[in-house]
């Protein structure tokens, strides 16, 4: 911005002249003459100090109100304060025209008008910066005069308020005030002429403010001096700084309106002139001299006057703070200026006026941009700027300073720079840069149906943006300025060349251009841009540096290079290359390296040169250099002509981040191997096709393997390669741990390939790989080490792993493996043979033997350990356990040592499994761990902190067994119930109250039959079967079939064999037993048995128990039991006993018994034929006896006997006549049970109904066998 007059760029603000605040100790000789500010030259010292401080502070506060600046959008009512002398004079308003100017003789003109011959603008200038300066520095809009109010010396003051005022004092005051008023009136006169507001601030002591006479004095002063009534007279006493700034603020507030009025009146005046001028245009057109006589001074053309007036009005509007109005006028001025530039007749190029107009246009452009930016009209501002550049570029072509001239580029650079500076100033205060992120999707969708209310511009904004008017941060514009300056330098150098060659006339401005240090400007601009990019970048790429800044840094480095500051350039290159290398942007890296190398050459840094050349070899030739051997030659030339700084040490070139020179590939034949197994590898080094390397004299190649401490050195030998093609194979043989030596021809043609083959082995488990390789280049005094095997791949190059099978012809086979470049070496797996044998299925309750035989088929001794895990089962009531030797567990037996087993030896262990519960599969996991005894070679002291299982030579064998388990013996129970044969105790029988009394009257007896069956596939040797009694409170075993011969039953049962036993159980039920109560069986059968093994041996003794079933005796109410002998003799009397029992807990029973003889009967009967049994109380019984004499032989039936239970049915409702209803009687016959045949089933579990008396399982009464005598 420094290239433009500051007056034309600065933000204008109302101007306030402040007088009377001169520093009292001003040095004589300063432009402002020191005048005594107050009449009181001998006041009190202290008071004087107060006023001095006040004056000083006032000066500071006022001056701080506004600093002249370009970017100042705030609209606070502040003034541009100019401190002036009290006696300051304003510039002359109008001067009368000299007599020799007939043209404008009519009226006097301002000395700055083009019509005034003495004016710098005479005769056809547009407007000069001096005009703006006149309004900013020489003419105020308000004039503030600070005057010290006279205060009487203390001796004239009254001692007390009651004292009359001192007559001298009053007179003195009146005299001084009159003097002061005269002075003010004088000033008032000059300001009135110009329409400038005059305000007087009287400075008085604090005491004076309280003086009652003050008001009178002030009124006097105002009247005398002719001051306005409004905002024209203030009184100020020494106050604190904060109060002072308040005062200044209110002062400005009060005076802002008059200031605006002042500038408005100016605007009005100018507008009048412009309008008058526009009407009079035709009059001016006449006397214009023709084109040819441009040397003759021509008056300003009407367009010029328009520009002048519009510019003035814009300025006045700006003074008033009316940005919109100012913008409008500036735009008018600008467009008229463009019209003027459009014609070389109006503004002939390369004249003084033309240059002035150009500056004016540039400045107006900046003002327009600025005013747009104040209003956040970013695109409008930028398009104004772009249009300005485009229009003037067009004009420039017409003026012969097109884009082939340095002048043009100088101007372009200036425009971008000024714009950048404007934005920079703006962003430092209020300007917010727009964000150009795209509108969200809904917005885009909404834009499909545009609301009609939107203007077209708005509509376009919704749809997208114009990149040309997207405002960016100032760094971009500095960058463009720098670019333009670079072009300027190019053009300048081009011109310089042409001038030297052809001796053509020197273009205008060339002399000045020669003095310009272009590169310094470029550097400055790029540096500014760099800083701005840095501040405006949000994201950095992890290194604290964005890529945009790197780009600029690269330009800076290039500029440094161009200006010969190579050391600076190198520092930049180093940093930039790091990111470019990492992100593999080789195309950008190549020119960078080339320039860097050039710098290194210039600096004479040979080592850096060598490093860079080696790196450049890796990147291949630059696009412009078609001679691909150039780099090789460069390198050789450097190496031959120079001496390294440390000749003894090899120079290590680090290519880890950049592209490798050689494409390397490391391939192993296998990905896994055992210790001491030799694994073949191939290391391939391929030279690039695009770079010539054949002349580089590589002395040796060192290959570092993961297993060897020393590298294998392959030295160069001059003997010709073994095969003619570009593919060579070098056999390195077995790589010894101590490294080794080999030789080969280490020269690569373009695209040539050398494959180093060999085998590698390890005595320990490890990972085999080729760690690195380094080529040593020896030339002259130089020894350079270049790493050739690196993880870095060439950009976009992925080599498939392949294995060379034949050199002539060259043949590869692809390796389809994931990890081909390393080999995992592990111990050989242990050769163990595990045999698990058992004779399934297993029986329940048996200790089932499982034989585990482990045979060591390895050639080493192995320590073996055995773990067995019994998986938990979900089988009901299954309680299983396992046992090995003495160790027993229900889940896991761990670490059973089998000791050290020699090769070929078998270790055997028997595992016992015991199962109970239900049949089903049992699952066993068997794990055999083997480890080589830790002695011998593998006893390496591995670090104790990390006991890596990898190194321990162990292996594990796993077996899972499913053992089917079945029942050895199945049982079937058959339960029947009979009534007790004992008589029921009477109701009042006292024995029933004894504690040991067994009441089986209700329960009766159960007869339990059991059938054992040998169910499994294997035979059993049963040693003992017995009933273990467990008599309970409700049931007890009476006897059992096994009681006598429990030991004699020992026998062998084969599969399918059955064995039966029977026992009787007496049951004593509770009186109030529930229906579903069951009585536990009072004992269990215990079988002791051994399994008969396949070879006839007997297995271990096992015991199986079968508990007696649950007992559920039937329930009865009325029971009739008939007891008959099984046989009788003819004609010998026998007895039939009928027992009737009432088992009902509550009801009595009334029974009638009928004996119905028949003619065919085989018996003669003596006894009751028909009668009633006495009423039976609950729990009572009655017995009836008949004597029968058989009269026939054979199976004969006794006469039919019926027992009827007569019960009243529920009484019917009483009849209507009151007589009792006839009683219904119901007869129910009770079945008679033949006790000889009695066999009752138990209650079914679910059956809740009581058995009908005697119904159901009651058979007919059996016959009696009558034998003859």
């Amino acid at each position, binding site marked *: 911005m420094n290239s433009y007059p500051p007056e034309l760029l600065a933000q204008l603000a109302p101007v306030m002249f402040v007088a009377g605040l001169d520093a009292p100790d001003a040095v004589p000789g300063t432009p402002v003459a020191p005048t005594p500010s107050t009449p009181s030259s001998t006041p009190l010292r202290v008071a004087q100090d107060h006023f001095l401080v006040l004056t000083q502070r006032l000066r500071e506060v006022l001056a701080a109100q506004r600093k002249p600046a370009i970017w100042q959008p705030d609209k606070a009512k502040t003034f541009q304060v100019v401190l002036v002398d009290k006696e300051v004079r304003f510039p002359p308003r109008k001067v009368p025209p000299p007599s020799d100017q007939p043209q404008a003789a009519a009226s006097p003109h301002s000395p700055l008008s083009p019509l005034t011959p003495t004016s710098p603008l005479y005769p056809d200038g547009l407007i000069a910066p001096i005009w703006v300066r006149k309004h900013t520095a020489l003419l105020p809009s308000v004039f503030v005069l600070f005057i010290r109010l006279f205060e009487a010396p203390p001796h004239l003051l009254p001692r007390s308020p009651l004292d009359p005022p001192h007559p001298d004092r009053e007179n003195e005051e009146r005299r001084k005030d009159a003097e002061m008023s005269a002075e003010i009136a004088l000033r008032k006169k000059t300001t009135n002429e110009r329409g400038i507001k005059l305000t007087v601030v009287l400075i008085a002591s604090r005491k004076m403010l309280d003086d009652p006479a003050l008001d009178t004095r002030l009124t006097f002063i105002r009247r005398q001096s002719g001051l306005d009534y409004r905002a024209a007279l203030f009184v100020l006493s020494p106050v604190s700084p904060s109060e002072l700034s308040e005062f200044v603020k209110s002062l400005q507030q009060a005076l802002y309106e008059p200031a605006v009025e002042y500038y408005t009146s100016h605007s009005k005046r100018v507008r009048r002139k412009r309008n008058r001028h526009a009407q009079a245009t035709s009059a001016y057109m006449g006397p214009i001299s023709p084109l040819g006589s441009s040397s003759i001074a021509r008056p300003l053309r009407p367009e010029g006057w328009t520009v002048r007036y519009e510019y003035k009005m814009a300025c006045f509007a700006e003074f008033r703070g009316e940005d919109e109005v100012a913008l409008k006028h500036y735009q008018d001025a600008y467009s008229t200026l463009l019209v003027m530039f459009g014609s070389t007749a109006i503004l002939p190029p390369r004249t003084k006026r033309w240059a002035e107009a150009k500056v004016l246009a540039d400045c107006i452009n900046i003002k327009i941009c600025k005013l747009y930016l104040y209003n956040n009209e970013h695109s409008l501002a930028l*398009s104004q700027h*772009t249009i300005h550049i485009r229009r003037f570029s067009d004009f420039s072509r017409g003026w012969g300073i097109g884009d082939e001239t340095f002048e043009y580029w100088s101007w372009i650079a200036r425009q971008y720079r000024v714009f950048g500076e404007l934005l920079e100033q703006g962003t430092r205060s209020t300007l917010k840069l727009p964000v*150009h*992120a*795209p*509108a*969200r*999707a809904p917005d*885009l969708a909404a834009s499909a149906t545009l609301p009609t209310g939107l203007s077209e511009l708005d509509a*376009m*904004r919704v*749809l*997208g*943006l*114009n*990149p*040309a*008017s*997207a405002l*960016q941060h100032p760094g*971009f514009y500095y*960058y*463009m300025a720098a*670019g333009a300056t670079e072009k300027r330098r190019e053009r300048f150098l081009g011109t310089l060349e042409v001038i030297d060659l052809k001796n053509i006339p020197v273009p205008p401005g060339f002399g000045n251009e020669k003095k310009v240090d272009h590169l310094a400007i470029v550097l400055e601009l790029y540096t500014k841009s760099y800083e701005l990019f840095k501040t405006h*970048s*949000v*994201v950095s*790429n992890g290194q604290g540096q*964005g*890529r*945009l800044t*790197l*780009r600029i840094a690269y330009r800076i480095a290039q500029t440094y290079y161009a200006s010969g500051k190579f050391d600076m350039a190198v520092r930049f290159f180093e940093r930039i290359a790091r990111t*470019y290398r990492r*992100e*593999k*942007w080789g*195309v*950008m890296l190549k*020119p960078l390296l080339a320039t860097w190398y050039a710098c290194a050459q210039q600096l004479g840094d040979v080592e850096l040169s060598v490093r860079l050349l080696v790196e450049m070899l890796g990147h291949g030739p630059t696009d412009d250099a078609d001679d691909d051997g150039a780099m090789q030659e460069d390198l050789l030339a450097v190496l031959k002509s120079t001496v390294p700084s440390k000749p003894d040490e090899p120079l290590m070139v680090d290519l880890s981040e950049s592209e490798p020179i050689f494409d390397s590939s490391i391939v192993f034949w296998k990905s896994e191997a055992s210790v001491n197994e030799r694994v073949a590898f191939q290391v391939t080094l391929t030279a690039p096709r695009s770079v010539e390397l054949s002349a580089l004299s590589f002395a040796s190649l060192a290959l570092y393997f993961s297993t060897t401490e020393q590298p294998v050195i392959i030295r160069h030998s001059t003997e010709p390669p073994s095969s003619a093609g570009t593919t060579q194979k070098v056999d390195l043989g077995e790589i010894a741990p101590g490294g080794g030596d080999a030789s080969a021809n280490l020269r690569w043609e373009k695209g040539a390939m050398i494959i180093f083959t060999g085998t590698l082995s390890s005595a320990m488990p490890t990972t085999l790989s080729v760690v690195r390789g380094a080529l040593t280049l020896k030339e002259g005094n130089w020894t350079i080490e270049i790493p050739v095997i690196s993880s870095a*791949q060439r*950009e*976009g*190059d*992925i*080599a*498939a*792993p392949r294995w060379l099978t034949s050199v002539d012809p060259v043949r590869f086979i*692809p390796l*389809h*493996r*994931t*990890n*081909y470049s390393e080999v995992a070496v592990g111990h050989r797996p242990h050769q163990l043979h595990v045999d698990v044998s058992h004779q399934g299925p297993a029986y329940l309750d048996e200790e089932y033997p499982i034989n585990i035989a482990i045979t060591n088929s390895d050639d080493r001794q192995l320590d073996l350990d055995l773990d067995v895990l019994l998986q938990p089962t979900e089988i009901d009531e299954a309680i299983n356990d396992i046992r090995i030797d003495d160790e027993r567990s229900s889940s896991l037996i761990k670490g059973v040592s089998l000791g050290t087993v020699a090769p070929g030896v078998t270790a055997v262990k028997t595992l016992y499994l015991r199962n109970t519960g239900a049949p089903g599969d049992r699952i066993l996991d068997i794990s055999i761990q083997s480890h080589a005894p830790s002695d011998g070679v593998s006893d390496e002291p591995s670090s104790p902190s990390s006991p890596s299982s990898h190194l321990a030579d162990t292996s594990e064998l796993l077996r899972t067994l499913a053992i089917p388990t079945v029942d050895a013996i199945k049982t079937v129970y058959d339960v029947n119930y009979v009534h007790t044969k004992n008589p029921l105790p009477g109701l009042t029988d006292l024995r029933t109250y004894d504690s040991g009394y067994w009441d089986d009257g209700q329960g009766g007896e159960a007869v339990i039959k059991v059938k054992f069956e040998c169910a499994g596939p294997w035979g059993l040797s049963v040693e003992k079967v017995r009933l273990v009694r467990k008599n309970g409170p409700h049931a007890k075993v009476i006897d059992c079939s096994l009681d006598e011969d429990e030991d004699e039953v020992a026998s062998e049962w084969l599969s399918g064999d059955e064995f039966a036993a029977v026992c009787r159980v007496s049951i004593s039920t509770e009186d109030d037993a529930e229906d579903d109560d069951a009585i536990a069986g009072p004992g269990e059968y215990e079988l002791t048995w051994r399994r008969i093994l396949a070879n006839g041996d007997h297995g271990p003794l096992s015991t199986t128990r079968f508990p007696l079933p649950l007992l559920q005796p039937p329930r009865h109410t009325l029971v009739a039991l008939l007891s008959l002998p099984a046989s009788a003799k003819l004609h010998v009397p026998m007895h039939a006993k009928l027992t009737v029992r009432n088992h009902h807990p509550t009801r009595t029973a009334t029974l009638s018994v009928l004996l119905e003889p028949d003619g065919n009967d085989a018996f003669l009967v003596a006894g009751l034929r028909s009668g009633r049994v006495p009423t039976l109380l609950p729990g009572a019984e009655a017995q009836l006896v008949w004597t029968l004499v058989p009269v026939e032989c054979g199976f004969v039936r006794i006469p039919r006997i019926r027992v009827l239970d007569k019960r009243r049915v529920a009484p019917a409702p009483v009849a209507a006549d009151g007589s009792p209803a006839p009683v219904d009687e119901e007869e129910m016959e009770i079945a008679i049970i033949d006790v000889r045949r009695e066999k009752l089933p138990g209650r079914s579990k679910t059956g809740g109904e009581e058995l009908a008396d005697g119904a159901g399982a009651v058979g007919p009464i059996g016959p009696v066998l009558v034998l003859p005598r």
Partner: protein
Amino acid sequence: MPAQLGLAAVAFVSPQNYPILIRALSSPSDDLLKYHYLAHTSLDVIDERIAAAPKNAESYLGFLYAMEEVAVYGYVTPLKVKIVVAFALTDAVIRDADVIAVFKAFHLAYYRSVANPFLKLHVPLDTPSEHGTLLLAGSAQWRGFRRRVDEVARAAGALPVVNA
């Protein structure tokens, strides 16, 4: 496809910020190096936009910046491949819809090219990720990608139609 957009260059950058393909599309094609720089520098702005945008934001990142006579637009595919397109700077509104159409076409061209199964013919199986093959798609030996990109450019009016 919209009419004249002034398509100047396109760049495909891998998620690791390695260049996949950078192709100048204007005819005559000018300095390719310049477009390398533009593509590389625009990654800054792309990173910024992605960081600022909410998750699952649009692929289209819009106008990134204007520099050296071109306006640079950005696009990031769901798999974080960045596509950068440079348009010649003219004083006209570039409709976002048009730019998105161009980006989608380029994205499809890229997608189709990467889907070429033969790209992986000589690639070792343990390539850590896909990006190696992505870079391969842009290498000189595979012409399909370039051809597709040129087709898009032709449709967008940047390149002359071959058989016209």
